[in-house]
């Protein structure tokens, strides 16, 4: 029953909240749609922690896309032996995870412990987001290191379980049974991922949708008419 709620209902609720929330926020709150940069309050730690966090996060996302979306059969068909795949995935995962972890720890310390100034510019949405993100990182590392990396022939292969379930969500036929054999850490990680998606529109994470692609082709000087 819990599995059904978490892996068949909750993903759709979370995505719906995210989409509706994004549209709502975009329409009513252009003014609040920002990275909420805190560089003004502190920049020495930010200067190295922020790139570490962001690059780490991007690599982790890429890793998830690869691990969850690419079926095992494909990599096997391409001639990648499971052991090699495992080695590459785990080592890249550990590096990316370490960057993300160090970056996050530095940013959290900076924000909540080192500088009073920063506590003053921290919003409630940030705190919720930091808690979920922190838990996710802990769970993610636990899985990568505890369940997968330390065992040469892992007893549990998420690509035969979590990945199947994840892909089934997109075709609107959630395969809850595929999640049943997953250890609790994997289950919690999967459910929390959707919590992150649900709080997305209400936190500073919206800035992810503001990647300035148009800047690459735009003329240098922007002219606008009065009142436009």
């Amino acid at each position, binding site marked *: 029953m819990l599995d059904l709620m978490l892996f068949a209902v909750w993903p759709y609720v979370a995505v719906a909240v995210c989409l509706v929330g994004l549209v709502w926020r975009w329409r009513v709150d252009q003014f*609040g749609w920002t*990275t909420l940069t805190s560089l003004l309050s502190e*920049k020495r730690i930010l200067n190295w922690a922020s790139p570490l966090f962001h690059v780490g996060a991007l690599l982790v996302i890429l890793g998830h896309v690869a691990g969850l979306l690419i079926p095992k059969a494909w990599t096997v068909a391409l001639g990648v032996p499971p052991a090699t795949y495992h080695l590459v995935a785990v080592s890249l995962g550990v590096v990316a995870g370490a960057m993300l972890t160090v970056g996050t720890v530095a940013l959290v310390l900076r924000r909540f412990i080192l500088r009073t100034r920063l506590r003053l*510019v921290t919003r409630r949405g940030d705190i919720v987001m930091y808690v979920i993100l922190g838990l996710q990182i802990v769970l993610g590392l636990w899985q990568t290191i505890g369940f997968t990396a330390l065992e040469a022939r892992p007893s549990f292969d998420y690509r035969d379980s979590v990945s199947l379930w994840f892909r089934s969500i997109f075709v609107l036929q959630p395969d809850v049974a595929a999640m049943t054999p997953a250890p609790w850490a994997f289950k919690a990680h999967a459910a929390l991922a959707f919590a992150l998606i649900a709080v997305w529109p209400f936190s500073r994470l919206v800035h992810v949708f503001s990647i300035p692609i148009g800047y690459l082709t735009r003329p240098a000087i922007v002219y606008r008419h009065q009142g436009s």
Partner: protein
Amino acid sequence: MKIMAQMAMVMNLDKCIGCATCSVTCKQTWTNRDGVEHIWFNNVETNPGVGYPARWEDQRRWRGGWRVDQSGRLCLRQGNKAERLARIFNNPEAPSLDDYYEPATYDYQRLIKAPLTGLTPVARPLSAITGEPMAIKFGPNWDDDLGGSALWAARDPDLEAIATKVELAFEQSFMFHLPRICEHCLNPACVAACPSGAMFKRVEDGIVLADQDKCRGFRMCVSACPYKKVYMNRLTGKAEKCTFCFPRIEEGQETVCSETCVGRLRYIGVILYDRDAVGALAAADNPLAACRSAMLDPHDPGVIAAAKSDGLPSDWLDAAQASPIYELAIRQLVALPLHPEYRTLPMVWYIPPLSPLLEATGAMGGDDTDADDIAATVTAMRIPLDYLAQLFAAGDQAAVAGSLMRLAAVRQHMRARSLGRDDSAAEAVGASPEDLERLYHLLAVAKRSDRFVIPKAHHESTAQVAAWAGGCPVGGGPGATRRKGRA
């Protein structure tokens, strides 16, 4: 060719007493909210000095403005687009509060509530941001009037760049004030650097603004502006900058800083420029000459015809022809741009200050028996020419000397006139007596309507008016709330 109009300003530094009324009235009008404590759209600095933020002119550190690369192309000092986008996760050149200052207030309650004892209560400084006790170590006016000159004035980047050895001992030094606002540049680096396209230049009057709704807090504008005149709001994480008081300008009123200036030293007017020529001018070999040639002659029939065909309203053309800015900057050549070598084509210009003569006039190469030897006068002034040239002419001392000589000639001519004597001052500076008298009028006795020639905006389009009906954009939100525990 595409002729556009630009609101421009000239400040006559001879008259600035450094009272900072402009800074205070500007702050009361625009930045008296939470989150913008450190922001001074207008600030007044003492020269020599470090300015605000400290050493803002040191572009090796801040990498603001533009430069011309080996192939003659104009590019932002921060690098090409890829290099700039690589700074999206951190921006080492953007100043933090530690580079500006920690705004402070005082524990005034203590003065009222202290128990009756034999000791005088002391109001300790408190951070205006955290409310915690703090030691005040720097601020936007820290080295005002050469305060602490050996420490602070000595760090002036302009002093490092000149040959003249400047004495900083108080009795031997010199000083003048430099009020600064955003330059509303023709080639604004802040606009070019903004990844979100939130910074823009207005077509009608050239005012450069930050669109708070489009800003995503990438803080590239802050580091790209060589004058450090875009700031981040601490609470909203969005860019804010001098607006040239556009709601007043659109109604034909001068900016707040200009209206309240006790020295009445600010002038505002329209100049015409060719938008299509901006790029080439910004990359030109001689940045001062480029700034000057950006201002087109509003009486030139070719310019008039082009302006009309580009849709410039006739009252704006009239204003451009009566512009005190064009008169001071181009016809009289007394006003000069601030750091033209930043290549943003700045539009707030300055009339450099005259200063007392050095005693050793003869030693400076002039004729010290002739007090009216204008050429000797300017080289013998206490403020070194090369220092002024560093600020206002990209090092071109002749341009500064030309301006100072004309200012000296005005005085000489008017003195001779009131004494009923003949004089050769006008000839000496290549001007006509009428030129000098016009300049005298504008600098000494001009009425408000002569100092500010500001045509009203054309609001005929109802769509524009409707767009403004939305109410106050700064109401509510984090900027408008007071933090707990503070009066």
